[in-house]
């Protein structure tokens, strides 16, 4: 059923982008409030795109999410953490692009070896974990330098580091829970389209 021509390719990607935009702006859909932080369900869309449309398109959809995160960090931040770290395009965009890449390739690689459903689950977990770990690593790399601390108005680097580590810990835990919970949920919509093909 899925025809591989240019118009179809463009319009399916456009629909995914539209879904990402909607998830960003409809409350309770893309971000679920969880204490001070918001849990996101947007990476589900990116993983679905990566598994159905391949790693390259998954990377594109993830990149769109990253761009929206980046712009929102200035104009309409999603969490108290966002204006601190996501104003750096490397932290906001790169991990999101890699969700698509990693989830897509993991699925392609695993799909030959094990059954489809566990392959999807593992791909989803891998994609989400890459996002979390990369965000944490990049924060650690970028936000211990005095220059950045100065830009955020803190003269004392070690203070900023501790502050960010606390926020990061609070960010990492829900994202890890999410990775475990979301993976099986993704499989349901995916399987239907895989079978339609």
């Amino acid at each position: 059923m899925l025809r591989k021509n240019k118009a179809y390719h463009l319009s399916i990607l456009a629909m995914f982008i539209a879904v990402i935009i909607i998830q960003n702006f409809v409350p309770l859909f893309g971000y679920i409030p969880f204490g001070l932080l918001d849990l996101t369900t947007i990476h589900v869309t990116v993983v679905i795109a990566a598994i159905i449309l391949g790693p390259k398109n998954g990377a594109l959809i993830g990149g769109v999410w990253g761009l929206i995160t980046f712009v929102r960090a200035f104009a309409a931040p999603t969490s108290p953490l966002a204006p601190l770290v996501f104003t750096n395009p490397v932290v906001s965009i790169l991990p999101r692009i890699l969700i698509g890449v990693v989830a897509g390739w993991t699925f392609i690689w695993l799909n030959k070896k094990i059954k489809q459903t566990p392959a999807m689950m593992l791909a989803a977990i891998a994609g989400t974990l890459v996002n979390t770990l990369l965000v944490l690593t990049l924060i650690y790399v970028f936000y211990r330098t005095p220059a950045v601390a100065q830009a955020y108005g803190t003269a004392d680097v070690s203070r900023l580091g501790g502050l960010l580590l606390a926020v990061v810990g609070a960010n990492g835990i829900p994202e890890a829970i999410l990775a475990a919970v979301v993976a099986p949920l993704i499989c349901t919509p995916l399987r239907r389209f895989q079978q339609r093909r």
Partner: protein
Amino acid sequence: MMNKLLFGRFIPGESFVHHLDPRNKLLMSFYYIGIIFLANNWSTYLCLFLFTLLAVYLSSIKMGFFIRGVRPLIWLILFTVLLQVFFTRGGKVFWSWGPIVLSQYGLVNGAYIFMRFVLIIFMSTLLTLTTPPLSLADAIEAILKPLRVVRFPVYEVALMLSIALRFVPTLMDETEKIMNAQRARGVDFGEGNLFQQMRAVVPLLIPLFVSSFNRAEDLAIAMEARGYQGGEGRSKYRILTWHYRDTFVVLAFIALTGILIWLRA
């Protein structure tokens, strides 16, 4: 529920800002966010504030819309400001308790960060309120055009963006419909513990994806039937024009940058 949404809330008008070239508006908004980081004392912030007020005045949009843009974010802003206030050391110390310090520098920094947030939100709200989303997509296409040198598919990206923006309201309506349909069947959104809340999203996502796949297929067939063959060699219906007033705005921004650099301590 979706009334709070400011994205794509274009308010038609005939003001100075409405008639500016969208490319100009987009670039200047980003430039504004850039130069806001130049500000580091009261006079520079006052200068930026007056400039922003002037821009808001020129758009002849009621101030209430801008306040409404800030309001849903106020807790977030306050939280960030408080973090800054209590974890910055320096200057006269007023009060301290363990690692928490209320100092002179902290208070000043907190006030600056508050101002920075409000100014950026005002400017980005101004951009979205005075520019229709499709003009923004055109502007992004025009700005990305130099990237064709490195084989970046500018036309494809621009078309994708236009389609996506066109279908955001359609899919949003559909999301709302699906949400209500699932509510009628007994799904609770935004209730229960975290796990239940996340599970509630699934009966929303699946039909939404199915319908967007169907829609994409229909759209692709309709596009091909109208002779779409790819981005190269097409002509344009909406053509952006650069007026004298756009040059004037660019000059105003350059002047602002100059003043900021001069006032910077």
